[in-house]
Structure formats: structure tokens, C-alpha cells
């Protein structure tokens, strides 16, 4: 009896895998709760960092390295906040994805700073954030090794799951949708299945994105996945029995959750009854001349634009023609009158014409009144 208790005590304290590091002023250790596991069986990793050099201020950045051999989720990070004595305890849930011996690697960065730098960072405010200046040192940690066992062939679900289904009716009219829900519930690796039904011509399947609810704990993931779908068909059909091969790593036994075979009776219906009488589109005509209307619309729009642009030009010409100043110039044949008109209008603008008129009137030089008028009208 004593012997067996002693063995248990030893097995509690001797963990399956331990990485122990005595770094620059801190210690760390990583522990896996098992030394081997099946693919998709939950493995808990705890990682602990403890500052030993209390003369400095230290911070740590820790995470698991991404790998296609496993997936991981951080469950918890507890920090014991004592004066220059950082102590952090991380808990991760890991699902191995490949069989064989896999390496679980880590990224750890030690950040060292001073009290003064910390005090300076606190002197900032919302609009003047001051960061902490740290000396960062990447720490090389030896990866943990985990032996991963393969699953029995054809296994789709890993964990302890129950499969339920809900079909509202087994009889419908042709092309009438038949709602069909499947729910997979239980603890284990999230039961997300690509194709529950094999493709068939007997019915048309409409599928929504599965509704997934997953709660991760230090033991496993508690899942509820609901597949909502609907089927319709033009004639009666049979849905074959659905069998999903599952494996429970705890009991190390395979089991097959099943949805029994389903018979659906489809009542034929006249095609006319299928037409949506409220929002029905206009029936297709043998010859569709609607493009002529569209083309005419474009032509009308083009000509409206063209005529509008032209009308602006016409209006400008009209305005030019009906400008009282231009009209007066056109009507005036007396050089003196024309001179006074030009002086009154803008002596600087019409300086050239004014000088010609002036030369004619007061220096008896020849005048081409028509040429002047033409110049003014231009």
C-alpha cells in the first residue's frame, strides 16, 4: 500500500516533460500534463517565469511558436505583482495535429529596465504617452517534445460527443424547403465537419455556416456545433443513414454517432403554383425589344446634353448680339458720338480705337469707321 502511494506521489512530482532554465536573473519552467497524446487530444502546458534578481525591473513577453504540428490557445496568464519580482504563470491548451514526436517551441523575450524609466513612463498622460525604454534579450528555450499517437482510421471527431438532429416534417411539396438541423455536442476537439452529406442529384441542399459555441477550459473544450440546412426536391427521396466515426481518447475507444435513415415524401405541384405571385418578374417574351427603349433613352439623353451645350452657345451669341453697347456701336455713324461711347465704356480697353478716332477728329487723318466697328465687335 505504502509502495503504491509512494509511486503515485512520485508520478505527481515528476512531470512528463520539464524545461528548466536559469536565465539572467530569472528562472522558468514549462510543464506538459502528459508525455504522449492522441491527435486532437487536449494537452495542458503550464509555463512559469520567476524573477530572481530583484535589483532590476523586468518584464517578459512569452508565447508559443506557431506550428502546423499543433494548435494552441492561451487559457490563463496570472501575474504576481511584487516589487521588482515578476512572477508569471501561463496556461495553454494544446491540440496536437500530427502523429509522431513533435516539438513544442517557445518565444520568450526578457525586457530589463530601471525604476527611473518606469517612473518616466508614468509621467505621461493620455495625449502625451511615454513608453518605457527596455533592453530586450531574446531567450532561447529548449522545445518540449510530445509523442503524438495516430487516430484510428476514418476518425472525424475526437472527444466525447453526442449527435442529435431535428427535422420539422418529412413531407413537403415539390421544391418546398425542408429545414434540417444537426447538433453535435460534447467535450473534445471542435467538431467542425466539412461535408456531412455526400453530393447527390436527389435533392438540393442549402447550408448555412455552422453555428459554433466553444468554451475552453483547463480540461478540454466544451463544444456545441449546430449545422442548419434545408433541402428541397421535386420528387420523394431517401436520406441515407449518417454515420460519423468518433474516438474518445479518455476511454481510448471508437464510437459512431448516427442519424438514422430518413424518408421524405415530396408531393408534386403544378409549375404555375411555384411562381411568386407577389414579386414575380415579368414573363420572358419570345422577342425582347426592350433594348430599343434603352437605346432611345440614351439617344434622348445625348441630344438633351448636346442641345443644352449648344443652347449655351446660342444664348451667348444672342447676348452678344443684344449687348446694348455693341448695338449702340453698330448704330452709331458719327465718330464723335462713337468716341464718347468708347470713353464712357472703358477708355483703357478701347484705347486703340479712341486714338484712331482722335487722330481723325482732331488731326484730320483718314478713318475707316467700318474697320473700327468690326474691331470693336470682335
Amino acid at each position, binding site marked *: 500500500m505504502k509502495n503504491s502511494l509512494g509511486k503515485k506521489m512520485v508520478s505527481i512530482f515528476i512531470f512528463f516533460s520539464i524545461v528548466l532554465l536559469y536565465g539572467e536573473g530569472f528562472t522558468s519552467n514549462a510543464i506538459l500534463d502528459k508525455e504522449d497524446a492522441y491527435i486532437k487530444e487536449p494537452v495542458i502546458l503550464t509555463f512559469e517565469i520567476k524573477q530572481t534578481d530583484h535589483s532590476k525591473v523586468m518584464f517578459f513577453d512569452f508565447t508559443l511558436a506557431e506550428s502546423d504540428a499543433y494548435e494552441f490557445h492561451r487559457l490563463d496568464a496570472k501575474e504576481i505583482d511584487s516589487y521588482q519580482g515578476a512572477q508569471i504563470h501561463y496556461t495553454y491548451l494544446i491540440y496536437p495535429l500530427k502523429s509522431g514526436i513533435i516539438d513544442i517551441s517557445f518565444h520568450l523575450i526578457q525586457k530589463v529596465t530601471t525604476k527611473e524609466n518606469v517612473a518616466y513612463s508614468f509621467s505621461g498622460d493620455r495625449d502625451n504617452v511615454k513608453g518605457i525604454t527596455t533592453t530586450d534579450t531574446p531567450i532561447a528555450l529548449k522545445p518540449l517534445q510530445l509523442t503524438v499517437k495516430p487516430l484510428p482510421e476514418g476518425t472525424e471527431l475526437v472527444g466525447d460527443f453526442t449527435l442529435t438532429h431535428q427535422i420539422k416534417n418529412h413531407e413537403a411539396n415539390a421544391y418546398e424547403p425542408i429545414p434540417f438541423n444537426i447538433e453535435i455536442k460534447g467535450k473534445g476537439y471542435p467538431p467542425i465537419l466539412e461535408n456531412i452529406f455526400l453530393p447527390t442529384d436527389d435533392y438540393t441542399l442549402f447550408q448555412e455556416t455552422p453555428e459554433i459555441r466553444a468554451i475552453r477550459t483547463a480540461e478540454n473544450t466544451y463544444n456545441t456545433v449546430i449545422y442548419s440546412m434545408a433541402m428541397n426536391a421535386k420528387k420523394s427521396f431517401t436520406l441515407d443513414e449518417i454515420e460519423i466515426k468518433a474516438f474518445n481518447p479518455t476511454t481510448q475507444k471508437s464510437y459512431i454517432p448516427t442519424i438514422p435513415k430518413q424518408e421524405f415524401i415530396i408531393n408534386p405541384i403544378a409549375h404555375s403554383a411555384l411562381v411568386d405571385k407577389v414579386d414575380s418578374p415579368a414573363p420572358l417574351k419570345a422577342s425582347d425589344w426592350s433594348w430599343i427603349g434603352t437605346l432611345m433613352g440614351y439617344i434622348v439623353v445625348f441630344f438633351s446634353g448636346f442641345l443644352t451645350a449648344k443652347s449655351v452657345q446660342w444664348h451667348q451669341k444672342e447676348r452678344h448680339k443684344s449687348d446694348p453697347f455693341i448695338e449702340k456701336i453698330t448704330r452709331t455713324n458719327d465718330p*464723335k*458720338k462713337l*468716341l*464718347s*461711347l*468708347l*470713353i*464712357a*465704356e472703358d*477708355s*483703357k480697353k478701347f*484705347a486703340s480705337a*479712341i*486714338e484712331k*478716332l*482722335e487722330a481723325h*477728329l*482732331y488731326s484730320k487723318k483718314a478713318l475707316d469707321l467700318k474697320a473700327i466697328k468690326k474691331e470693336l465687335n470682335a
Partner: protein
Amino acid sequence: MHKKIEVLKKELSKAVIGQEQMIDGLLIGLLSDGHILVEGVPGLAKTTTINALSKALGLESKRIQFTPDLLPSDIIGAQIYNPQTNDFGIKKGPLFTNLLLADEINRAPSKVQSALLEVMQERQVTIGDETFRIEPPFLVMATQNPIEQEGVYALPEAQLDRFMMKLVVTHNSEEDELAIMRKAATKSFEKVEPVLDREELDELRKEVNHVYVDGEVERYIVQLIAATREPERFGLESLKTELMYGASPRASIDLYKAAKAKAFLRGNDHVTPADIGFVVHDVLRHRIVLSYEARAKGISPDEIISKIIREVPIP
């Protein structure tokens, strides 16, 4: 003599691009003892033009920036106590110059404006009990900024009358502005050199006095001014309600002098109605007072002057 004007204009064009109207106005003022009021936004080369003109003529120029806290003594000068001689000495103000740029004249209170305008008219200044004569040539170019109306002291009509011409200076053409931009960026404006001296300027002024004005042209000037006072006599009944006050006799004198100077600048020895036409708007626009009705209709003094020119028979 007209060649000297050409040389002067060419020299001015080294520093001033475009703005022929302002240069012509300044030359008219300088040749016929008039003062010029310029209305225009800042940056139209007003100071540059005055400086260039003073350099080209070997004259002295000064600039006064009018501000609300300016005092008459700041511009005309004051008696300053001298502790060494135990007596008051005279400190002459910036008015004692040949070409004066009175920038934003409507920013200073009326007592400062009056002090300047009085000197412009009398051409003498009294500081304490001593009177000083301002030596000719003396030209004031005052500016008004048309944009800002807050915190300005508008010049009364009687004071405006002392300006021979009011020029409305607009922006340069795009071509001119391009040339200004390039020259300013490369600092390649040429230095203005003196091309005329005082004696030559005096000769030009005498020449302007000798420009002949025919009796009919003189009568035309008087009729234009009379039409601003009694428009109905010239078939301009509509102007009766639009005009509150017509132009003063000083307007006839200034139009006469400005037309002579314009004719001279154009190289003529006699004044024609065209010379009058070139300056009439500038001479009259600040001297006629529009009625409230006309201002409400948005009628400008220039429109009224144009109506008068159209109706008063040209000789």
C-alpha cells in the same frame, strides 16, 4: 521731351511689371502737382513703384503705415527737448520728403488724416511756432484697402477732394504675374538707376504747363463737371435722384491739369477730348456723392460718370 518720359517708364519697368495705370497716375500727379489715392488690395507693388520712381528721378521717398494709434506729430514732426542745449529742437517727420506713400490712410483717425491732407494742400507744415515749406516736387500716394471695413476711418468727401485722382488698381494679368513670380524667385529684378534729375523734372513740369488746351475743350471739361451738379441740363434726369452732390471746382482744375499731363505723356502738345476721356473717371470717381437710392441699387460712381460722358456733347 516726350523721349525722357519714355526713358523714365523704361527704367521703372525694371522694377515694376505691369501696373501701367498706376505708373501713369503717379507721373500725372508728379507733373501736375497732384496727389494720388490708390484703392487696391495689398501686394500690388505700390511701395515698389514709389521707390522705383524716387530712384529713377533721384528723389527722396518715404512710407508711413497708418495705424489707429498714429498721432499727427508722428507724421509731421514735433518739438523735442534737448537737455544739452536746454532748449526745444525740431524733429521733422517723414512728411518732409518728395514722394510719400501713405499706406492704408483710412486706418488712422481723422485728426491724423486731416494733418496730412492739410499739408498736401498747403505744402507747408507748422511745428510749434515755426513754419516749414515742403520743397517741390511733393507727391503723396495714399492707399486704401477695399477689403477690410472694420476698424477703419473712412475719408470724408471734403478730404477726398484734395486728391487729384483716385486709381482703382487691380491685379496684374497672368502673363505679368508669371514674369513677376519668376523675377522675384530668382531675385533678378534690375537695379533702378537715376535717369532724370530735378532740373529735368522741373523742365517736364513746365512743358506740361505749356500744353495747349482749346477753348472748346476747356468748355467740355466745365460741362462734364457741371453735369455732375445739374444733370437735368444735359438730359440726364435720372441722375438727379442718383447724385447727392456733384464735383467741386477743384475737380475742374484737376481734370484740366490731369488732361494736360496725360496729353504730354502721350506725346501731344495739345489736349483732345480723348485725353480727358483717359483721366475723367480717375479724377471724378471720388468727388461725386451718390444718393442712398443709387447706393442701394448698387450703382457705382464710374457708371454715373459714364452716363455723363455719353450725354455731354464732345467738341
